[in-house]
Every structure is written in C-alpha cells, then in structure tokens.
C-alpha cells in the first residue's frame, strides 16, 4: 500500500531571538539552539492510525505542527497524499484537520456554533452543512451545548469543540494533539472508538495523534513511535502493540527514564 504521509530526515531547531541587552551591547552571538526534532523519518499508509508517545518536551507537538504546515522544518521533506508541503501548502491544508492542545484558537465571546460556522466557512463549507456536521459530531460528547459562549465552556468542552472543528470539514488526515487530555472517561472512550471504527476503518481516514496514555496506543493504533529529545527512539507495529502491552510499557518507561 502506498504511503499517505511521508517524513524524510526532518530536523527543527529553535533559536532564541536576540534580547534587548544583546542588541544594546552589540553581542550578536545567540544562545544555543534547542533541537526540537532531529533527523526524523517515518511513513504512514492511508487509513492507518499512528500514535506518538514521548515524555514532556520530546517534540510531539512540534512534530504535529510541522506536519500541519504551521511550522517549517529546517531540513528534510514532508509529503502528504503525494504533495510536498513546501510546494503545495494551500492544497495540503484542505486535507488536514488539526486539533491543538491549547484552549486558545477560538473566539471566546462567540458561541461554539458561531466559532465552528466561521472556521467551516474558511473550509468552503456553508453554514447549513456546518451546523449539521457540528450537531452530529457533538453527539460524541455528552452535555455539549454548542449554543453556549466559548468562554463558559469547561476545559473538556473546549477540547470537544476543538476536535469537532478538526473533523467537521471531513479531512483526509487528522492531527490530534493529546485529543483526550481534558475529556471525561466516557467521552474519551467514545471519541477514540469513533476515530478507529468510523474514521479509520469505514472512511479510510489517516490519523496521527499524540498521547501519554499507553492504553490508547495499544487499543487504537496500527503503529506507534516513541520520541525522546526530538529523536525517534522506537517504532512499534500493530502486532507488538496488541500482543505485548507490558512490553510497550517497559520500553516506554525505559526510554522516558533514561538519563534522569
């Protein structure tokens, strides 16, 4: 099967901006760069689910943002559906649904529905279809009223709205940053099951998500990678994930605790 997402030798360093005192004292040598991602390569077939594991600061969110075209890598290439992100940025964005971990990213004085209507319009989806989609998807999350103002939602409800926004334009590739972090247990289970059964299996969507929950990796993923300090430390296949949960736990703990 052909790869839907392909990353080749991706590296990303963050260099801090010059401070005011550095400019005034004419000391232009910068502090050391942070190596967020180093020489990372992997691929994923269409309709598959990839889980990304790693301790805090491993580079998981940076990696998702790079695939989402929100960050440009310093080196390496990324292709999605055969299109390279540096050449086909605009078209690739219509293929992607991204849900960020941050609560920012919405208009807090508008309702959930008004927010979704706006962002769907930017995906060329009319308001009638947007409402229909939003209502369908909101059923995944109990007690979610889309007519309330965004600033009145709990953290879990904000995350639910973020997930609905990522899904509502029916993207081919879903990038989800810790999608169940703020959700209650039942909503989290229902959402992940929906991702597996409906999106990946029935509709052949490709999903990449980050998590700290090994059970989610074990239960829902076709493939998993473990990152540490921006480097790929382990690639796990479906057979390993399903059969040997304890082995996954041991591997993860070993990598996470190294050098600490």
């Amino acid at each position: 099967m052909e790869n839907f997402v392909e990353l080749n030798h991706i590296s990303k360093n963050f260099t801090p901006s010059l401070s005011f005192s550095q400019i005034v004292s004419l000391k232009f040598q910068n502090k050391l760069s942070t190596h967020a991602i180093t020489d990372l390569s992997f691929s994923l077939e269409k309709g598959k689910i990839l889980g990304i594991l790693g301790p805090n600061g491993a580079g998981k969110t940076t990696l998702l943002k790079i695939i989402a075209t929100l960050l440009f890598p310093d080196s390496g290439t990324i292709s999605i559906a055969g299109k390279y992100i540096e050449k086909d940025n605009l078209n690739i964005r219509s293929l992607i649904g991204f849900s960020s971990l941050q609560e920012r990213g919405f208009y807090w004085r508008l309702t959930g529905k008004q927010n979704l209507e706006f962002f769907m319009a930017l995906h060329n989806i009319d308001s009638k279809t947007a409402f229909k989609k939003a209502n369908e998807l909101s059923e995944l999350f109990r007690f979610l009223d889309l007519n309330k103002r965004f600033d009145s939602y709990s953290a879990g409800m904000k995350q639910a709205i973020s997930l609905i926004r990522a899904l509502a334009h029916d993207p081919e590739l879903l990038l989800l940053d810790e999608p169940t972090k703020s959700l209650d247990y039942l909503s989290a289970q229902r959402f992940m099951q929906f991702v597996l059964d409906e999106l990946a299996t029935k509709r052949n969507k490709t999903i990449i998500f980050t998590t700290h929950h090994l059970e989610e990796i074990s239960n829902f993923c076709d493939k998993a990678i473990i990152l540490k300090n921006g480097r790929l430390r382990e690639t796990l296949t479906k057979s390993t994930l399903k059969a040997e949960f304890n082995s996954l736990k041991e591997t993860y703990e070993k990598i996470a605790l190294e050098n600490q």
Partner: protein
Amino acid sequence: MKKIIAFLKKTFLVESSYQFPLALNIASIFLGLLSYFFINKLFGQKITTHLELFGVDYFSYVLVSTGLFGYISVGINSFPQKIADEQMEGTLEAIILTPTKTKIILAGLGIWNFIVASVDFAIYAILGLFVFRVNLGSANLASVALVLILSILSFTGLGIISASFVVIFKRGNPLAWVIGAFEGIVGGIFFPISVLPGWLQIISMLFPVTYAVKAMELAVYRGYTIYQLKTELTILVIFSTVLLPTGIKFFGWAINYAKKQGTLASY
C-alpha cells in the same frame, strides 16, 4: 467572497458583544470637532492666506482633513491591530491552517474596520452639515469617492507592511511609529502644509496623506473634477500600485518567517 462575508459576520458578532464602542465613537468625533470649532472661533472664523486655496475657514478645513485622516488611519492601524488581536486569541494559527489565501485573510481582517470608518466619515459629514453648518454643497462626489478609494488603497499597503512587523516583532512597530509621529505634522491634517518651512514641505511630499488631504479639500470645497485633481490622483495611484503589492508580499514573507521561527502563535 463567501470567506470575506464569514470574516465580516464573525467580527460583527464579536464587536456587537461589547456594548459601548459605537456610542463612545460618535461622542469622540463630536467632542473632537467641537474643540476645532472653538479654536476657529478664537481666531475669528477667517479665511487665512494659507487657506485661500481651499476657500474655507480653519474649522471647515479641519473637518474634512480629520474626517479623511480617521478614514485612512484605518488602513494603517486596522491590520496590525487585527493581527495582534488574532495572535493574542491564538486564532491566527487556526485561520492560517485553513485553505485560505493570504490576500483573503487580510481582506477579511480589515473589512469590518473599513465599514466602521465609512460610518465615521458619514458622521463627520452629518455633524459638519447639520450641527456646525458647514457648506458642503460644492463637493464633487465623483472626485471625493475616487480620492477616498485611492487613499484607502495606499494606506492599506502601509497597514499591511505594518501588520507584517507585528507578525515578526509582536510589539514595537517601527513603521506605525514613523507614520503616527510624522503624518500629523507633515500631512496637512491639522493645518495646510504651506505653513511649514520649505524643508518640511519637501518631507511632506513623501507621504500619501499630503496628496489625499489636498485632493479631498479641493474636491469638497472647490468642487474640483477628477481631471483637475490629476496630479494628486496620479501620485496616489503610484503609491497604491507600489505599496499594496509590496505589503501583501511582505506579509506572506512575515508569515513564512514566523513559521520558520515557530512564533506564529506567540504574542
């Protein structure tokens, strides 16, 4: 067009969730004009030699110039302000994630403020006509409309360049500072540029506002036709054709720079 309407609707919903800005805006315009009205009274409501070209007293002059400046300031200030707002809310990243061209994003972010500025401009005209009894009967409306359009295009270009600085530096916008600091003095907004010394008059020629104010005063009070304003209008066309594409290009570059630096969502 649908995307621009979506931006407009979104901004309307956000702005209308606040209660006082519109009423305060009208009050500010009225109080500002009232100050000029009394300054004019102090100097005897005369047409000074510097105002002979336009054939009006100081209050009439400043009514049009401040009204126009309020309008074109939107071009300079609305883009950096909107970009800063979207960065603060984290929505800039969410907007850029959608398959929307940079030009559409800029138009969408700016359009609400242009509508508000048009309403403000109309308020200046209504207050001038009905409260302060200024004679606007000689205005050549075709010339007024063309001056407005060309002015706004020139200043939009400057505003987009200014917004690019916000994307890169977040705070501390050198272009906005230069424009804000110099245009009030050399642009002919609070007094005709003929009162300035020669060297400042030369500097004033570098700013599009100088030509916009002069053309607008002549179109409103002398009824100048488009042909009679050809020099000022040609210069405004040159400013527009240079500044607008430069601004859009620069903004695209600033977004790419922020994507490289990883600072798109920071503020």
